[in-house]
């Protein structure tokens, strides 16, 4: 009840940030939401690279970024997709599109 009363006036993304679905890594959600807000409108997909890929991170990223398709730690980035690195440095040669909390939005060569 207190939680609801406290959070009701906040923005929807903030309410999710404080909720159960992001408890496994709240910084990851912050990173995802920041990436979502910085994505160019014509983005075909986003390949996310993280040192701790889990099913939770895959589900949360896929949902939060929908309808933009998401892959987590793919062997290769599909053509014309963007990348996002979380808790890692961008691979050499990848252009940084935007810096995000805990990572960056990158354009693979």
């Amino acid at each position, binding site marked *: 009840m207190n939680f*609801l009363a406290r959070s009701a006036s906040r923005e929807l993304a903030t309410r999710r940030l404080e909720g159960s679905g992001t408890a496994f890594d709240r910084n990851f959600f912050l990173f995802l939401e920041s990436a979502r807000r910085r994505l160019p409108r014509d983005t075909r997909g986003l390949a996310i690279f993280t040192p701790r890929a889990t099913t939770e991170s895959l589900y949360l990223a*896929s949902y939060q970024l929908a*309808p933009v398709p998401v892959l987590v730690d793919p062997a290769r980035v599909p053509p014309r997709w963007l990348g996002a690195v979380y808790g890692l440095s961008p691979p050499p040669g990848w252009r940084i599109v935007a810096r995000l909390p805990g990572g960056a939005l990158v354009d693979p060569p």
Partner: protein
Amino acid sequence: MGFAGSLAEVAAILLVAAAVGWAGAGALVPRGVPAERLAWGFAAGLAILTASVPLAFALRMPPGWLPFVLLAALTVSLARLLRIRESASVEKGPSPGALTWVFLVALAAGVALYGLRALTEPMWANDYLAIWGLKGKTFFAEGGVPQRLFQWRSLSFSHPEYPLGLPFLYAGIGFLLGRWDDHAMALVFPFVQVATLLALFGWLRRRGAAWPLALGVSALLSHFEPLYRGFTTGMAEVPLSFGLLLLGTSLCDQVDRTDRGASRRLGLASLVCAGTKNEGLFFVAAALVVAALSALSRKGLAARAAAALALPAALVVAAHRLIRRSLPLRDFDFTLLRKPEALLPRVGESLATAIHEIPLAAWIGLAALAVLLAVGRPVPAGERLLALAACGLGAYLLLPSLAVAGPAWLVRTASFRTIAALAPLAAAGLAVRLAPLFGTRDTGQGTGEVGL
């Protein structure tokens, strides 16, 4: 916009859907049973809202109010032509006593508690994020059904083979709202809970249960936390549990020929079950078997029940084939059914895991159910409802033995919440068997007239 404003908007959308459904339910429910008419009307309203989305996509119309209003107008017009004029004979009984007021307060508390659990935060369960919400949000954002959801291997975690009813409902609410708000949208679930309780109460009263019994069972169900909790909010179990109650009660009405709306209600229930989860089709098939067995002792209903059950389910299957073609149930290895030597140990593992994982509180609950079962009187409607619930229980306990990921995994991750969805059905079955103990009748007849 803040949460309160969004919540009010979603509440208004759900009330509009319920009002449309109420108008349409005149062709489903006899007069004189407002609780049941509200429940069936809500189911019909949500079905119209859900169907308006693929309809708009198919007709290349902008989804939203226009296709919803058109479909609603069509349905309500048809319902007026098919309106049921007969009235249900519900025994008034004595005026509500103190006990009834206690149950009423308990019921209100159960609804309020689930409302708080459901609305505390945006829907968050893994299955909501990965399956139901992902598809709904994608339909909403793309204004269509992208085939990648069903074809890309990287999206196989979202279970492309699951029915699309719930995602279309989410998208429908999003289109009417004009934005995606997965917090306010959770209000659907407390509404479904209330509709379930109304359906249970109304049906029990029409079947002759006394006020305190009907209200007491509804109050008890409203507090059933394994079903009505934050975790299940967003997933398909709560809507399916509503659909199963509608399926079971309308099946009993059809078998007992209570009124001319029974077969229509059975058809809508079949549509809801088949469109919500894959096992909905299994329950429709189980209902067919129960109807056929009942027809052995009661004349001439098997064909009508079969048509009412099978046609809507076939329509749902055909619509899914059109949208995404046929997709296999990849979580299960059905070839094991031909290998008893491999299957039997897996059945043992499923059952052993289930028994091992049942907490003490659940054993106490099961013991209480056994007592209620023992003290109840044999009532045909009760036996049918419990037979349907038993079919579901058997399937949910045995299906993990076919799981590709292993029986124990599926039992631990899914069995208990899926079994919890049988609660409204089982509650109706147990309660109607208790009705004679409270000095009330088991009518088997909802109306004085039998007008099939």
